[in-house]
C-alpha cells in the first residue's frame, strides 16, 4: 500500500466515523420526526390526498408546523395568497434562527443553501448544540445532521400517509401532537431565555385576538398585535435605559476621576 492509498483509506474510515457521529446526534430527532411525520401523513391521508403529496411536501417544504397548517388551510379551501401569508407568518421565527447562525454558516461552502433550506426547529437546536468531532469538516458534519433529519421527516410522513390508507385508524385528537409540541417548546423557551415579558404579551394579544377575531385570522392578528406590544415596551424601556445610562456615565466619570487621582499623586511622589 502506497502512502497515498493509506491516506485515502484513513480518510474513508474517518468519514464513516464522522457519519456515525452525526447519526448518533440525530437519534432524538429520529424518534420525534418518525411519529410526527406519520401524524402529518395520517392527517393529509385523512383529508383525502394521495401519499405522493405527503412525500412532495416533506421533500420540498420541510416544515412541521407549516405542513400541518397547510393541511388545515387545504381543508378550508384557502387561496394561494392566504397560504403564502400564513406560511410566512408561521415560519417567521426561522428568520431569527438564521440571525444567530450567520457566523456559524459563514464558512460552510457549497452546502450552505441546503443548510438554510433545512433549518427546522430541531435541526437548529442540534446545529447550535452539537460539537463537531475533532479533525472533521464542520460543513460535512452539519450537512449529515440536516440531511438525516430531512430523511426522517420524509420517511415518517410517507409511512403515515401509506399506513393511513391501509389501516382505518381512529385518529380523532391526533393533531393535538402539535399543541403538545408547542407547549414543550414554549417551556424550553422559558428556561433558555431570561426574558419574561414576551409571555405576558402573548397571553394578552392571544386572548384579545381569540375573543375579537375569527379563528382563521387569529394567528396573523395576534402576532402583529404582540409584536407591536413588544416594540412599544422596547421603546419605553429604551428611554429608561438611556436615562439610567446617562446617570451611570456621570457617576462613572466621577469614579474614574477619583480612581485616577491617587495614581497621579503617587507618580508625583516618585518623581
Amino acid at each position, binding site marked *: 500500500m502506497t502512502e497515498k492509498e493509506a491516506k485515502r483509506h484513513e480518510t474513508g474510515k474517518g468519514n464513516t466515523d464522522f457519519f456515525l457521529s452525526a447519526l448518533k446526534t440525530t437519534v432524538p430527532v429520529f424518534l*420525534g420526526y418518525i411519529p410526527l411525520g406519520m401524524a402529518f401523513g395520517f392527517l393529509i391521508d385523512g383529508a383525502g390526498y394521495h401519499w405522493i403529496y405527503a412525500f412532495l411536501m416533506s421533500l420540498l417544504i420541510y416544515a412541521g408546523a407549516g405542513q400541518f397548517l397547510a393541511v388545515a388551510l387545504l381543508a378550508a379551501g384557502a387561496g394561494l395568497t392566504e397560504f403564502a401569508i400564513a406560511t410566512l407568518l408561521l415560519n417567521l421565527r426561522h428568520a431569527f434562527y438564521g*440571525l444567530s447562525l450567520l457566523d456559524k454558516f459563514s464558512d460552510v461552502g457549497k452546502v450552505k443553501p441546503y443548510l*438554510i433550506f433545512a433549518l427546522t426547529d430541531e435541526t437548529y437546536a442540534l446545529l447550535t448544540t452539537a460539537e463537531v468531532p475533532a479533525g472533521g469538516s464542520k460543513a460535512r458534519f452539519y450537512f449529515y445532521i440536516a440531511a438525516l433529519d430531512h430523511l426522517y421527516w420524509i420517511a415518517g410522513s410517507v409511512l403515515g400517509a401509506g399506513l393511513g390508507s391501509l389501516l382505518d385508524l381512529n385518529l380523532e385528537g391526533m393533531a393535538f401532537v402539535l399543541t403538545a409540541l408547542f*407547549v414543550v417548546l414554549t417551556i424550553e423557551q422559558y428556561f433558555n431565555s431570561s426574558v419574561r415579558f414576551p409571555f405576558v404579551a402573548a397571553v394578552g394579544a392571544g386572548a384579545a385576538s381569540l375573543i375579537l377575531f375569527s379563528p382563521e385570522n387569529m394567528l396573523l392578528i395576534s402576532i402583529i398585535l404582540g409584536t407591536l406590544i413588544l416594540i412599544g415596551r422596547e421603546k419605553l424601556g429604551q428611554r429608561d435605559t438611556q436615562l439610567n445610562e446617562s446617570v451611570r456615565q456621570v457617576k462613572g466619570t466621577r469614579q474614574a476621576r477619583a480612581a485616577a487621582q491617587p495614581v497621579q499623586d503617587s507618580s508625583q511622589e516618585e518623581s
Partner: protein
Amino acid sequence: MTDTLQMLATITVIALATFATRVLPFLCFGSREPPAMLSTIEKNLPPMILLLLVIYCLKDVQWLAAPYGIPELFTIGVVAGLHLWKRNAMLSIFAGTGLYMALIQLKVFSFL
C-alpha cells in the same frame, strides 16, 4: 388535472414562503453586522410566537358548550407538568397526545 396543478402550485408557494423565512437573515446580513434593535426582537419574538401558537391551537375550542375546553386545558396541564418534571420533550409530547386521544375518543368528559 386542474386539481393536481392547483396542489402543485400550492406546494410550490408554501415551499418558497418557507425558504424565504429561512434565507431572509442571510440575504440581509450576509456581509454586515445586524443592528442592535434586531437582537432585542430576536430575543423576544420567539417565546411570544411559540406561546401564541399554543393559544392558536385552541382557536376552535367551544368554551361555552360542554365539555368547555376541559380536555384541552387538562391535557396541556399534564404536558406542561410532565415537561417541567422530566424535561423529556418526546415523553411530554407523545404521552400528552395519547392522553388527549383517549380523553376524546372515550368521551371521558361526557358527563359534563
